[in-house]
């Protein structure tokens, strides 16, 4: 099942449903890269709160999306990693270094939106 991508202003929101296949993830990557250019989006938020497993392929694909998005001029934030998932990922050495993460969509968008002082609140 394809992963839906929602557009809200300059933000693209992809919400992963339980257990996406590898093909779904690759399709998401392609679609996002395409849509960023099309909608001139600045922020991509990927919600993974419905996932109870994150394998190495999913992590690698998300990392790929974040890097590709950066090259297309937008920032990616991964939101909603569950405690158990986070713990398992760390055990596997999948730490998503250099990629923004946030508790949930709300928090992720607040962090990525430009602040009055110029930068984003993600620039810490």
């Amino acid at each position: 099942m394809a992963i839906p991508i929602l557009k809200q202003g300059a933000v693209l929101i992809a919400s992963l449903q339980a257990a996406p296949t590898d093909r779904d993830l690759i399709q998401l990557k392609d679609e996002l890269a395409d849509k960023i250019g099309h909608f001139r989006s600045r922020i991509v938020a990927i919600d993974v709160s419905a996932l109870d497993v994150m394998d190495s392929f999913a992590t690698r694909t998300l990392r790929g999306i974040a890097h590709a998005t950066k090259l297309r001029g937008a920032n990616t934030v991964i939101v909603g990693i569950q405690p158990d998932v986070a713990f398992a990922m760390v055990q596997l050495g999948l730490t998503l270094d250099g990629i923004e993460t946030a508790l949930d969509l709300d928090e992720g968008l607040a962090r990525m939106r430009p602040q009055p002082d110029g930068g984003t609140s993600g620039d810490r």
Partner: protein
Amino acid sequence: MLDQQSRLQSSSIPLTEAEVDRRKRIVDLSGEDISRIVTLRNMVAEQTDRYVDAFFRYLDDLGEAPALFGKREVLEEAKRRKREHLAAMTAAQYDRGYVEQRIALALLYSRHGVSTPVFLGAFHQLLRALGNDIMKSVKDPNDAFQRFMSLKKVAFFDIGIMTDVLISERERTINLQQDAIRELSTPVLQVREGLLILPIIGMIDSQRAKQLTDGLLRSIRANRARMVVMDITGVAAVDSKVANHLIQTIAAARLMGSTVIVTGLSADVAQALVALGVDLGKISTTGDLQGGLEEAERMLGYRVVRGNETTGPRLSA
């Protein structure tokens, strides 16, 4: 009663026919033994009270199990079970019910501070009394010895069960205490909206590290925390394993969108980490808890302002 039942189930001995048979096989209890033991039934039945008294008097004289003698009803129960035991021992029905009785008695001992060596000492006295009487009542010494040895197999069968229960009860107590220590020592506290403190005190082993990470991640979600100050002033020694645990905890917190500041690294710990070559480059640290809190507040956009700079802190609004 229900409690007793659950305790029986939770003890380390599986109450199955196969297990009972296995234990019988271990002590080499045969049909021949059983027929010899049955001949002792009348003798034991007549003398039961004397044996029971001897057993408990010996325990009392030892002074090693005061808790058992402190309460009348406890002692009465123990005596009643001991009488039951002697009757069952010569009834020669060594089945699940028999094992259950043994476990129940061992649990009673364990609850009232009868340790394994004390129990063994008293049990030996009981066997000696039994042995003396057998030698007296049976004319042929060879025959008497054979009968005593058969009884001894049952005694060892009992001892096997009793010591297993006593030891597993002790282990259970230790585990409970360790759990209590673990629970006590890993609180996660919110000091401001979005800011948690995680004070770590004492040893960190793999299990505690897992629990610590687990507790932190759940608190991050529950409190919607964006900053965590992890204070390790109370951690005396850090080796590469502990450092690794901490790094993993920090990485997991980051995946949940929270930034961790580590505070309270003592001079020794800092030197040790450098010597170990642990890569702490990606971890932000400050000297003490106060510094960590100030840094975290700054990052969250809090500004702490004293009410009146010239007169110092105001005590009332």
